[in-house]
């Protein structure tokens, strides 16, 4: 059935976690506001301050779906 998704990307910076393609990040904007995104390498998230959303990056794949994004608390 489902195969192991633990393969490592060539551009991996962390042996356990396939890294996101840096070139890819240059193309991405927030799908809701079209504003530029901040890349949080530690949390593996792309943050849209304008929309108050953090889009997760899993296995090197940015998930640019508003319904899967984490809502940032305004404080």
């Amino acid at each position, binding site marked *: 059935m489902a195969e192991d998704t633990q393969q490592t990307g060539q551009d991996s910076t962390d042996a356990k976690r396939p890294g996101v393609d840096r070139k890819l990040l240059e*193309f991405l904007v927030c799908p809701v506001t079209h504003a530029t995104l901040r890349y949080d390498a530690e949390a593996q998230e792309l943050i849209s301050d304008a929309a108050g959303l953090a889009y997760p990056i899993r296995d090197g794949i940015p998930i*640019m779906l*508003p319904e899967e994004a984490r809502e940032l608390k305004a404080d």
Partner: protein
Amino acid sequence: MTDPMQIFDPTALARNRSGASRRVRSGNTHAEFLFEEVADRLLDRLDDVARPFAAALELDARRGIVAAGLRDRGRAETVIAADRDAGFAERCRHAGLPTVRAGHDFLPFAPGSFDLVTSCLALHWVNDLPGMLVRINRMLKPDGLFQAALFGGETLTELRACLMDAELEVTGGVSPRVSPMVDLRDAAGLLQRAGFALPVADVDRITVTYTSPFTLMAELRAMGEGNAIGERLRRPTRRAVFLHAAQLYADRHAGPDGRIPATFDVVFLHGWHPAESQPAPLRPGSAANRLADALDGKEASAGDSVPKKPN
């Protein structure tokens, strides 16, 4: 209630595609042959475009065949694969493509990002195709190319008619089972309306034969192309409907070998983001030479009667 403006049900579509990606991930790519065939045709058409593409995007990339082909043929420096489905996105990433999960309504790309946007057999599931084409056009650089293939025209016309007739005879009513299809003239018009320059739409007919209508329907489901129409019948269809439809299909279409044909019309869309370097007609009234001079004739003003030639 389903939204009447939404022909297709996004939840059903996501479920269908996720079923297809699970099958592909388990190594069963048998039902993928139409996608492979049309991806090849798209790539061959792109080979006819002389210049290379610096940045390219494949939407609804599935396994990323077109994207990987562009990369492997040396046609594009950077090729990004986008697919909403987690399983397909994983396949693209596995193929070494920079991959992003993205849907149709919210595209995460800046305006003027790409020299090429392509899509293979997916846009027939978009609810708002005119809006989608506008969004695609916006992502292109000036003189960037949009080239895509989608099912349209007479696709599954045999199945549509047989299911409709069978359901009407058996239950006394009909429910939508085969998607409405875009026709060629509509397609060209949509490209123009979305602001593409030099828009072209053409169609390739691919006829596939199957051992029975049941094999055809099973294969459509395996492709993730099962019924996702919002107004589809939500309760199970009576078996008698399918049995009668299969009988009608065989009676009307079966060849001497007993196999039944299914029509797939693949509509190819082709348009450019406008740029000043593109050939364009001159503005009316901007002519620098008189037509009368070119014809070596005498000019008469509009409304005047043409003087009779003396005999």
